[in-house]
Every structure is written in C-alpha cells, then in structure tokens.
C-alpha cells in the first residue's frame, strides 16, 4: 500500500499532462507461463531452463511450459515424449494445483486495490474495469503499469497487460507483446487496429463461427462492417450481435464481477483403460459422487437432477436422472450411479466417468411437505466436511475410497478464487 500512496501524490501532475478521460477503460492482465513461472520461482535452479508441467508424475501431456521450453517449439497439449524429442533436457514437473490456486488468489485479491471491478477470467487472467478510476489513479496506461508492478510485488512474477476501451481489444492487445509486455490501444484506434486482424484471432470466435463468417466474405475484422448485424443475430442470437461489435473494437460485454450461480457442478475422471470390474467402477463412482456432494454442501447448494455418464471407447453410456427432492448427499447420488450400472451397463469396457449435478439451487430454501429432514445424516455431513476442510480432501472418507484413484486433481480452466468455482 505504501507504494501506492507515493504514486498517488505524483498522479496529479501526471493527469494534467494527459487530460483525456476514456469513455470506457478495460485492462486485461495475463500471467506469463503461469504454472511454469511459479515452479521456476519456487526452485531457483530451474530458472532459465526449459520446464514442462504435467499432471502428476504419470501425466504424459504438457499442461504448460516455461518460455525457455517454448523456444524449442514445445506447446501446451504436446505429449511428453514428443517434447523430449525437441528438447532432451526438458525438466518434467508435476503440477501442484493447490500452489497455483494460492498464488492466483493472492494476485486476484491484490488487483482489487486498483479497482473493485475485477473479473477473474481464468486462473491466470483477469479483466479490470478501470473506467471509473481515471480521476483517482490517472490514465489507463498508468494504471496498466500499476497492475504490472502490483502483480510483481505480490508474486514476483511477470505478466502481460493489454489496455483498451473494451474486453476483446484489451485481450487482443495483451497478446501482442509477451512476455512481460504492456500494450495500449486507445478506444478511438481500436477499430482501425483490428481491421486487418483475422476474425478467428479474437477471443470467442472459434472455427465454427469463423467458417460461417468466411461464407459471407468476412475473414478480417474490417470486413465485418459490410455485413448487416441481423445476419449474425439470426444465426447466433445475442452472441452474434456481440461478435459484430467485437470485430469493430466495440465489444459491449461488461466486466462481470460476481460469479454467476452454477449451471452445473460436476467431477469426472479417466479410469484405467477398459475397466470391467464392477467394484473398481463403483469406487470411481463413489470418489466422484463424494466430490460432487461435498462441493454442493460447501457452497450450500443442492440438486434434483444428475448426469451420470460412463465412457466406453466410442460412446457414452449416460443419462440424466431426477430425484423426488433435491439432495446434497453422496448416498442419493450413488443410488443413481448404481441405477446406471444396473440398468444401462452391459459390461462394456469403460474408460472414463462423469458425475454432474444439474442446475443446483440454494439448499433448504423451499421447504418440503412430504419429506422428513434426516438430521442424523446432516450432522454426519457437517462433521465430515469440517474434518476434511481442515485436514484435506478425503482425510475422513468411506472405506471404499481407500482404493480410490491416485491420479492428482486437476485445476480447471474455469477456476475462480471464490465461490463454487474455487475447486480443484
């Protein structure tokens, strides 16, 4: 905080020289090679060396890698074996999601010193709406410097920052100079700066939408102007309208500060290839059901409908099941899992499992007429959750879970430092 106080005093003269107040000012902060940078920071001997992060020791897929590794052509998603061909000295590093979440949380929390309007976009990215802070802190460019300094002070890590008048252009700007970059595109230049950029380079325009646009002769953002907005609206609805504006440097999307209530809460896991042993499957089911139930309870949710799915080599054996009253108990979810196993599964070899609570709602809100609340079970869940919150997941668990999968937890792209998304 001391750092900011001294900065603030000098802001006045700074502001006088740059009197322009942007109508909207958005900053995107993007951590550079986040997981790998944390590993290099924690292990000084790895600094300046190619590091590839994998999911545990057994993981064969590069989740992310350091800039030194990227120089060899190693990319996210590459197999470890392929990566070793490009760079024999690559250091394999098992991921530590808890540590990444910890660093991310401290960075995201610190960003709120600059503006309360922070949207945690992913574990290593955040949007800041600084429109209303221009009189307080100075120009958007100045605030971008503040973000970089602040992130470094908190984590000793570097980030790239993009500044513009809307989210899409800010994200595009941040990509231009990596690592440790800072790019400013004033809102009145956005349209012209994006004009020659292929539409598919913008965040949110995938190949499908890109293909649709190409059929209408729109390959670069500048081509969009010629296309009536109605064409996109008819095909993609509001998303289509947003894309039309996005390409012209005027993305109307707001910075979303609160986490929307969940559409679903689910966990899945890859099983040993071609599993047919019912007991092993039940253990995996219990493992995932327990995670889903505990997570529902942690955020005071319950759900009435569940998706239970088993993946064979080529297709899913899956269905959505309804309960008569909403639940947050592993017993009810396991009942549905057993139902799937008994009624749908014909001993096909299985590879993967998914258990998802659909449209969870706040627990115990609407009281039920015909179901007695099971106080004994409630007390058991409370005790279980308290022990596991304090000593770690599955410290206290049913005996079946002694045989659970050893594969480590994975940090999801949608991870958030608070709310139901704070899970690994």
């Amino acid at each position, binding site marked *: 905080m001391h750092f900011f106080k001294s900065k603030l005093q000098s802001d006045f003269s700074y502001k006088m020289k740059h009197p322009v107040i942007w109508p909207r000012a958005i900053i995107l902060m993007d951590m550079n090679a986040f997981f790998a940078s944390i590993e290099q920071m924690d292990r000084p001997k790895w600094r300046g060396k190619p590091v590839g992060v994998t999911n545990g020791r057994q993981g064969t897929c590069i989740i992310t890698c350091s800039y030194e590794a990227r120089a060899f052509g190693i990319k996210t998603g590459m197999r470890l074996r392929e990566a070793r061909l490009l760079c024999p000295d690559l250091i394999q590093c098992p991921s530590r999601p808890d540590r990444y979440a910890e660093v991310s949380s401290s960075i995201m929390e610190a960003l709120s010193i600059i503006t309360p309007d922070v949207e945690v976009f992913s574990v290593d990215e955040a949007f800041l709406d600084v429109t209303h802070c221009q009189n307080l802190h100075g120009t958007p460019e100045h605030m971008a410097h503040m973000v970089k300094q602040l992130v470094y002070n908190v984590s000793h890590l570097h980030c790239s920052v993009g500044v513009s008048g809307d989210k899409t252009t800010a994200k595009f700007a941040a990509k231009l100079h990596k690592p440790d970059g800072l790019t400013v595109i004033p809102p009145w230049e956005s349209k012209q700066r994006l004009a020659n950029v292929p539409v598919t380079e913008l965040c949110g325009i995938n190949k499908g939408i890109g293909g649709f646009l190409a059929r209408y002769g729109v390959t670069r953002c500048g081509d969009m102007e010629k296309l009536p907005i109605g064409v996109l609206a008819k095909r993609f609805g509001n998303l289509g309208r947003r894309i039309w504006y996005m390409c012209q440097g005027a993305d109307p999307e707001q910075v979303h500060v609160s986490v929307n*209530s969940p559409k679903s809460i689910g966990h899945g896991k890859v099983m040993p290839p071609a599993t047919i042993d019912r007991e092993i499957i039940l253990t995996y089911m219990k493992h995932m059901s327990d995670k889903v139930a505990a997570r529902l309870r942690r955020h005071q949710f319950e759900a009435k409908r569940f998706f239970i799915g088993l993946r064979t080599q080529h297709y899913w054996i899956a269905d959505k099941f309804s309960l008569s009253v909403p639940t947050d108990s592993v017993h009810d979810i396991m009942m549905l899992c057993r139902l799937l196993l008994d009624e749908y599964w014909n001993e096909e070899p299985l590879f993967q499992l998914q258990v998802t609570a659909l449209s969870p709602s706040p627990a115990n*809100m*609407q009281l*039920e*007429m*015909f179901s007695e609340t099971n106080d004994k079970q409630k007390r058991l869940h409370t005790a279980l959750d308290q022990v596991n919150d304090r000593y770690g997941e599955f410290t206290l668990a049913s005996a079946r879970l002694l045989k659970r999968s050893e594969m480590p937890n994975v940090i999801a792209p949608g991870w958030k430092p608070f709310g139901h998304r704070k899970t690994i």
Partner: protein
Amino acid sequence: MKFSIERDLLLKPLQSLCGVVEKRQTLPILSNLLVKVEKDKLFLTSTDLEVEMHTSISVKGTDPGETSFSARKFLDICRTLPEGALIDVSKEASKVTIKSGKSRFSLTTLDPSEFPSVDAVEQGISFSIAQNTFRRLIEKTQFAMAQQDVRYYLNGLMLELSQKGLRCVATDGHRLAMCDGDVEIRTPEIKQVIVPRKAIIELGRLLDTTDDEIRVDVGTNHIHTVFGETTFTSKLIDGRFPDYQRVVPQGGNKIVIADKELLKQSLTRVSILSNEKYRGVRFTVSDGLLQVQAHNPDQEEAEEELSVDYTGGDLEIGFNVTYFIDVLNVIPTDKVQIVLLDSSSSCLIQEPGNEDCKYVVMPMRL
C-alpha cells in the same frame, strides 16, 4: 361410409375430441379419429391410450361404415370452412373425401380395427354430480398438481369418495389444495383414486357451468364419466397418494385476515422484483399490518404495505410468491384468511368462515 352434417354442429365436439389427441405420436393411428356411422348417428372416438373420449352426433344422408383419419386435419378443415357450411364426408377405397360447397379434400385413412380401445370399466362406485359442482372442484384444486414429478402419483388429482361426499386434493410437495363437494355417494368405505393430470385438464374443459347432472363411475383402474351423448374415460394412476391430512396445519395461532384483491395486487407487483427462478418474497406481519418485500440478484427491491386484520405478535416468513398468487386466484370471496404458526411451518389459506376449501403452502427460508 357416408354422412352429412352442418359445420357448426360438428365443430365443438371435434374440438373436445382433439384435446385428447397428443400432438406428437409414435403410433400413427393415435393421431386419428375413429369414425363410425350407424343409422342416423355418427360416433367419434379419440384416445391417447390413457384417456379416451367418445361422442355421438345426429347426422343426415348416412351410409353405415367405419374408418379412421386425422383428427387435427379434420378439425382444421371444419374450423376454416365458413359458418353454416354443410359438410359431406364419404369413404371411397382407402381415401375419405370431405366436400363442402366448392371445397374438396381427400384424406388418407387407417384400418379402424387397429384403433386401440381403453379397457371397459370394472365394477366400482357410481354417483351423479352436477357439472358446475365438479367443475368448481377441479378449478379450485388443479393448479396444485405436480408436473412430470418422479413421484408419479403427484401428477394428478386425488378424488376421495366417501359418504361425506367428493373431496379433491392436489399437491406438488410444496403446496396443497383440497376442496370438498356436497355429493351423494353410496359407499361403505373411503375410496381414494388418482386421476392423471391430462384427464383432469380435459375434464375441466368439458364441464360447463350448468347444474345438469353427469354420471361418474369409478372402478379400480379407470374413471368413466357420461355427459349425455359424450363419454370420457381415463386410466387411473396406480399409486398411493401421500397422507394429506397430516400436512394440513393444526394449531396455527396467528390469524391474518386481508383484503384478497389488494393482497393479490400487492403480491403481483412485488413479484416483479423477486428472483425469477426461486420467486421468494418475505412476509412480515405485525399488529394491523402486512409488509411484503422482494429483491433480486441485481439488488433491485420492492416493498408493499397492506392494512390487515391481525393482532398476535410479529412474524417474518418467506414464500414462493407464485404459490400464493395461485391460491388467491381461486378464492372467490373479498377477504382471505391466512393462518400462520412460525417461520418454518406451513401456512393455511382459506375463505374466512368456510371450511370447504383449504390451501397449504410450505414456506421458504430466505
């Protein structure tokens, strides 16, 4: 097969018959009508395998026979013909021809022997009931039936037949509606049957406001109603209805009497700013006053105050506002009585001084 009929005589029964026909069918014949001509009578039947409706109409220029063709298309043709038009229907080979004035339509037919029939009604209890009485019972309770609940026995209306009369009860597990009708039923014991949701909605449409009597036969698996020329049969839901008596609250000591119309208007306005999904509103009662508040995730708020007849200490309780408005919609009197106990107990709503209809709503924790 051949018959002639005036459009206006055919239209109303045809509309009722089409109510039974499901829009999407796996069995093609279920989208058809069974059409039979005998002497000067036309017999029409529609079914969805659960509900069956059968009616007869006097026709002219007949030639006996039987066939089956699309109910929806026949209705649409008749509906769009001008008023007073005369319709001639005749079957030739595998087609049926509909002629009126200068219009001509040819429809495909299916073998009438393939037309499924709902089984005959077993021996059971029979009684007569005035159309308006039955209609009133259904209107006052049907809104509380569950929709596609896994507790399938809630997706219908429970009819309780006893010497005391006919009682209808509907519940979806969050609210309950029950209403008693003064009907003479000769039965030594109390019998409960559950009529499926769809059949209740169709029956509600068929019943009119006259006091003409209809006959109702309740068997073990079917209910059968006879309205003059029309019969309506439905399968019953095979299941046990929950013990509804247990959930009708006893001993509520906080009795609020409010103006029904003003309360309904207040709730309707407040509901605009309630959470769209959960619809929770907060009721605060204090001596002579009822306050209703709602807010939504955008931090928008609504508040209403209403003078009520109440003394008995302060209480705050949450409700799904839709459940409350549904009840107020079927209460005919100027005043409504709301009996509360505490913030986690159900509430009893009824017309003041009338025990015939009772409504129970479970609260929400806000």
